[in-house]
């Protein structure tokens, strides 16, 4: 087996609220390998976002070990955590979280700026990614001039800019209508098919059909860890099955298909 990308060992997270201590994560252990498409599900308040923040090096666990790409990040200082985020992680948020005063291109360039990629090169990467998510005609627009689906595509392009080990998404389609949600999910599928490791937090049971693995949390613990419907793809038994549950989703529109194809044929930032 290959080296795991993410390995959590007994991760605990508690918040001090006045006198009471609330235990949010109560010993989560899990291992994620390259190319997996992991879906984290569970009832509201069970600690999904908290876990994703820990995975994203935005938050430090109260105890436990977290190996990201072989490096124990649970004991890093703030600067090194920033560097870990900068090099290894891509974020996609429910509310897009684009910087309002920057254009599409400039938003995509933000991670490259902090990575220290020279201006010229970073501009080229941003233009390529923008066209890959189908926004070549919106390069100099500001987020307020874009639809939700378009904004989320910018966010996807941005998350890919620094060629991260893993992409973390917290209810990435939560703010979208079902049509543009499907388009976004189509892009995710194809990213995964192109080899990207994805960790996805969602309430949407239909996602089970798309991912290779489903982790169900309950009260801050891993309740169940099961294979997703697309697990075949991951294990490589039936590589031909492109979209096993395509039947239950409305057909993705052609733009999304095109985008997905582009992403597959030309692996992003190899």
């Amino acid at each position, binding site marked *: 087996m290959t080296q795991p990308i993410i390995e959590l060992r007994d991760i605990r997270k508690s918040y001090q609220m006045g006198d009471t201590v609330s235990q949010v994560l109560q010993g989560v252990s899990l291992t994620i390998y390259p190319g997996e498409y992991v879906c984290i599900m569970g009832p509201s308040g069970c600690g999904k976002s908290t876990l994703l923040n820990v995975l994203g090096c935005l938050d430090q666990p109260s105890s436990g070990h977290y190996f990201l790409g072989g490096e124990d990040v649970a004991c890093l200082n703030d*600067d090194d955590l920033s560097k870990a*985020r900068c090099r290894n992680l891509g974020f996609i948020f429910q509310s897009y979280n684009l910087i309002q005063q920057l254009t599409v291109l400039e938003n995509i360039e933000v991670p490259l700026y902090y990575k*220290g990629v020279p201006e010229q090169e970073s501009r080229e990467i941003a233009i390529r990614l923008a066209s890959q998510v189908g926004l070549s005609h919106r390069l100099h627009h500001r987020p307020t001039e874009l639809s939700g689906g378009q904004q989320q595509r910018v966010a996807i392009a*941005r998350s890919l800019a620094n060629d991260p080990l893993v992409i973390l998404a917290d209810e990435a389609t939560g703010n979208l209508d079902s049509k543009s949600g499907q388009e976004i999910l189509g892009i995710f599928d194809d990213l995964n098919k192109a080899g990207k490791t994805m960790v996805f937090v969602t309430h949407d049971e239909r996602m089970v059909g798309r991912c290779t693995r489903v982790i169900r949390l309950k009260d801050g613990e891993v309740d169940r860890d099961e294979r997703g419907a697309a697990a075949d793809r991951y294990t490589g038994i039936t590589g031909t099955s492109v979209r096993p549950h395509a039947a239950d989703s409305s057909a993705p529109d052609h733009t999304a298909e095109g985008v997905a194809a582009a992403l597959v044929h030309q692996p992003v930032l190899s």
Partner: protein
Amino acid sequence: MFSLAAHPILRLAVSPQHMWRSIVLGSKSIWLHKLRSMLTALGVVFGVASVVAMLAIGEGASHEAQEQIRKLGSQNIILESVKPSDNQGPAQQTRSMVIEYGLTTRDIDQIRQTIPGVSVVVPSRIISEYLWNESLNVDASIVGALPIYPQMRNRRMLAGRFFSELEQNERLPVCVINQTTAARLFPLASPVGKSIRVRGFYYRVLGIIEDESQRSTGESSGGNNKSSNSNSLAQLIIPFYTLMDQYGDTFFRFRSGSFEAEKVEFHDAIVRVNDVNAVVTRADAIRHLLARNHPNEDYRVTVPIELLRQAERTKRIFSIVLGSIAAISLLVGGIGIMNIMLASVTERTREIGIRRALGARQTDIVLQFLIETVLLAGAGGVIGVILGLGIPIAISHFAGVTTVIKAWAPTLAFSISVITGIAFGIYPAMRAAKMNPVEALRHE
């Protein structure tokens, strides 16, 4: 690569290109809120303008003082006769009276005899007459002086020579004229060797002396009725004894249209003190002596070296006044900037969270906000310098005060604005950087 300070948050390791991009980003952000930025920078604008103006006026005051001392001589004490102004009683009574005032031989003799360390006393007398060269004439002052006069007054000879000790003692009818006289009476030819007629008496011209430079403009306010000031007026300088022969020991001036007459022995005299350090004490002694002889204060004592002190005082007062304005403006301006930056940090909490999530270190956030503050303050500084350069020019123009703008003054003032930016920007920037990324992302 460079590093700013030892504090971990400030440990900056940034390449010049990265720095440049940060500056461009910062400028854009400031430009986004033009009006707000302008109002915010206003305090710094006034502060910096005051600094520039203060330095220009201060430098101007000392420059002017030094200029005067150069003209009047730092070892000199200048005594002048002043017509008493307000102690004359009803005008009707004085109509037919002879007004007698000013320095007398007795004063000069007493100074010579009782004040130690005083080397030369040069008395001079000024008389108003018409000078003639053939058909050309000019209304001029005739000055009776000693041969040392040019050195004492720091006036250069432009042509020919001054009269000698011998000519003085022989009471010869020789003279030296100033530029103005030369230009008026001898517009075409050189006057040296020619003669000038005054009331049927001829004086041979020995040389041309430069015009008397403008004396102190506002500082010496002893008398308000001074008649002997001869700024760029025509002058005829003759040996003192020659003048005594011609016009007697005293001088009468009859005012046309009235019976009033003036009797003045000396219009002015210069006392040279051998030791520069003793000038002030000798001046006090002379003031005492003259105060005893002249209860009606019909004289004035000017001590050039005291002008320097006066200038220092002026400079200090301006420094205190404008310095306080500058300090208060900069403080208020700085607080204004800090206030706006704190608001801006709160307003942009979400952006900070996003940037942190995308890999920005605390240092990057500090840098981002600090650059914005410094750009804001620096822009205020530039406007302030421009304004500050205008103030001294306006003051010189309207108030006649000399101002001197040294090259380092705007540089210093601009640096102050940048330092203000850093000083008041560091706290908001740190606050932005210290935010918890998760909470910042959740911020609405």
